[in-house]
């Protein structure tokens, strides 16, 4: 048998259920892997060895007693630090929440716990999920396991790196403009942004409430689908939740793995196609090779026109910061987290301003100012209001396209993992990372990124976008593409040099 950490979540779940491995063995293997390589990768902000092993032991006792605990029982998971976890530090990688221990669980945390999945720890991210490189974490940078000089994507760089470096078989991410899919693409992992409203936002630290969507990060589509079904479904505590059955994503991933896409129409967006000369040639090449594979599997490629996609980036960067400037008003130094300047000399308002100055990093401040601008009297119609109108046009483009095709494909991101520091000086260059992922967020439909090949030795992702509540089709196409690869791309990552830095691991999160 291969090493425990090389096995997929689906395999591990079967091993545990059928008694070939215990959950304690599995969980220990991943915890040991974290201890061995996370000193280098730095994907985790906090590791909960004790808690993870306690859950694992519960699973083993239940399995020994003949109980069936469900499809992923005993399989450990890493959780992005923007998801609240009762009793475990949750910071959204911001100084303003450093040391905060949530008194409650997010709905998806509850569901992970109910599924008896040991939580390994909390993963690093761009502060409040604002960024595409995880360089905006207030604590430290996470490296790309494929090349430690490069970014792991963002905002969910920690979750993607943890899965890519085999420190976790599964992870939770959140996607507001591409924060699950773009890290997936640049780390050679699978990531899915489910239909907005199908996965509860209750207990996600809010960034942009009309866009935020939690979803799975994994090594392949089937594992992602298994996790998707664990966390997905109606939640009355989220006022924008969709009260409808979860699309059959596991079945779709299994169907896709048969490698037959005959009869399926896949759209390519005319306005994207004409912009690929601005993307990296190696990325476009890998994407086109992927499209050829999909054609060989029987899919028909149909060009669709989505003229408003050209305006998706500015639309997003008006809507998301506007919502963020409102959502982040809650960090006022009163009820949780940091308080600065409370020396008896400063008024409450001054303390709020000093707290927010000390607690927020540069990208968060930029977006709060941008959102405040877009919402301020005199500008609101020209900026925020206009963005809401263009958002409607983008939705309509999708709706029209899905009258012609079953799913839409594109590269996930225009470039491979870039080097540290390459884009932090020019925020707009950073924003371009989400050029192809943002339209789906504005529309609300599902989108997945699946590894499609390499460029300059670094992974490239192919994005599959589906209609609202059509998550299953995205999984089917992704799994079909995987079936054309001899080896999962995630399995070909170079081995991390195991610099045993146990102390760095032990000190974290304390």
């Amino acid at each position, binding site marked *: 048998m291969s090493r425990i950490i090389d096995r997929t979540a689906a395999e591990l779940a079967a091993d545990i259920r059928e008694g070939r491995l215990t959950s304690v063995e599995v969980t220990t293997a991943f915890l040991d892997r974290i201890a061995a390589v996370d000193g280098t990768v730095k994907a985790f902000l906090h590791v909960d060895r004790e808690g993870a092993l306690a859950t694992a032991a519960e699973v083993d006792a239940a399995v020994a007693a003949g109980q069936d605990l469900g499809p992923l029982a005993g399989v450990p998971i890493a959780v992005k630090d923007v998801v609240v976890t009762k009793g475990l530090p949750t910071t959204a990688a911001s100084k303003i929440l450093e040391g905060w221990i949530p008194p409650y669980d997010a709905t998806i945390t509850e569901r992970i716990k109910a599924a008896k999945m040991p939580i390994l720890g909390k993963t690093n991210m761009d502060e409040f999920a604002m960024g595409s490189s995880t360089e905006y974490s207030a604590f430290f940078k996470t490296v790309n396991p494929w090349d430690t000089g490069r970014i792991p994507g963002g905002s969910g760089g920690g979750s993607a790196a943890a899965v890519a470096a085999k420190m976790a078989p599964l992870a939770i991410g959140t996607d507001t403009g591409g924060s699950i899919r773009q890290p997936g693409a640049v780390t050679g992992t699978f990531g899915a942004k489910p239909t907005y409203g199908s996965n509860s936002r209750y207990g996600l630290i809010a960034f942009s409430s009309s866009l935020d969507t939690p979803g799975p990060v994994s090594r392949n589509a089937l594992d992602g689908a298994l996790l998707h079904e664990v966390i997905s479904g109606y939640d009355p505590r989220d006022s924008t939740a969709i009260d409808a059955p979860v699309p059959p994503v596991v079945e779709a991933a299994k169907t896709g793995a048969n490698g037959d896409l005959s009869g399926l129409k896949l759209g390519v967006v005319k306005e994207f196609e004409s912009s690929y000369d601005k993307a990296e040639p190696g990325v476009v090449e890998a994407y086109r090779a992927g499209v050829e594979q999909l054609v060989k599997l029987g899919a028909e490629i149909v060009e669709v026109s989505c003229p408003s996609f050209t305006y998706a980036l500015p639309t997003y960067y008006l809507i998301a910061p506007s919502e963020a400037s409102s959502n982040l008003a809650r960090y006022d130094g009163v009820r949780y987290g940091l308080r600065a300047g409370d020396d008896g000399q400063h008024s*409450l*308002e001054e303390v709020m301003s000093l707290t927010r*100055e000390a607690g927020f990093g540069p990208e968060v401040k930029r977006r709060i100012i*941008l959102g405040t601008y877009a919402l301020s009297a005199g500008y609101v119609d020209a*900026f925020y209001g206009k963005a809401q109108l*263009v958002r409607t046009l983008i939705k309509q483009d999708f709706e029209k396209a899905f009258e012609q095709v079953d799913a839409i494909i594109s590269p996930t991101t225009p470039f491979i993992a870039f080097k540290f520091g390459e884009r932090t000086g020019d925020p707009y260059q950073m924003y371009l990372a989400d050029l192809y992922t943002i339209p789906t967020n504005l529309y609300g439909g599902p989108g997945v990124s699946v590894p499609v090949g390499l460029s300059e030795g670094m992974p490239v992702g192919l994005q599959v976008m589906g209609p609202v509540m059509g998550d299953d089709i995205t999984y089917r196409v992704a799994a079909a593409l995987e079936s054309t690869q001899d080896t999962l791309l995630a399995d070909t990552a170079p081995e991390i040099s195991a610099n045993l830095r146990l102390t760095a691991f032990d000190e974290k999160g304390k």
Partner: protein
Amino acid sequence: MSTISREEVAHLARLARLEVTDDELDAFAGQLDVILESMKTLAEVNTDGVQPTSHAVPLVNVFREDQPQPSLPREDVLAGGPDTAEDRFRVPRILDEEA
């Protein structure tokens, strides 16, 4: 001409209760100008007769029965506060002396 001046950025920061340093003001003004320039392209788009989208999935009001439920234990909530006293969050003075 730039879309946004250093003074405007300082004003917006005050509105958002953000202290910003002089260095930040210099950096943000230039960066926000680039970003806002790209946003001006939205003016090209004809949106006559288009209804705004505030949420991805259209929903009407969602109601539930108004049933009392236990809230979080007070001590658990106060435990996250930066300063608490007498079972409450302690805050600095709200009004200036002269106010």
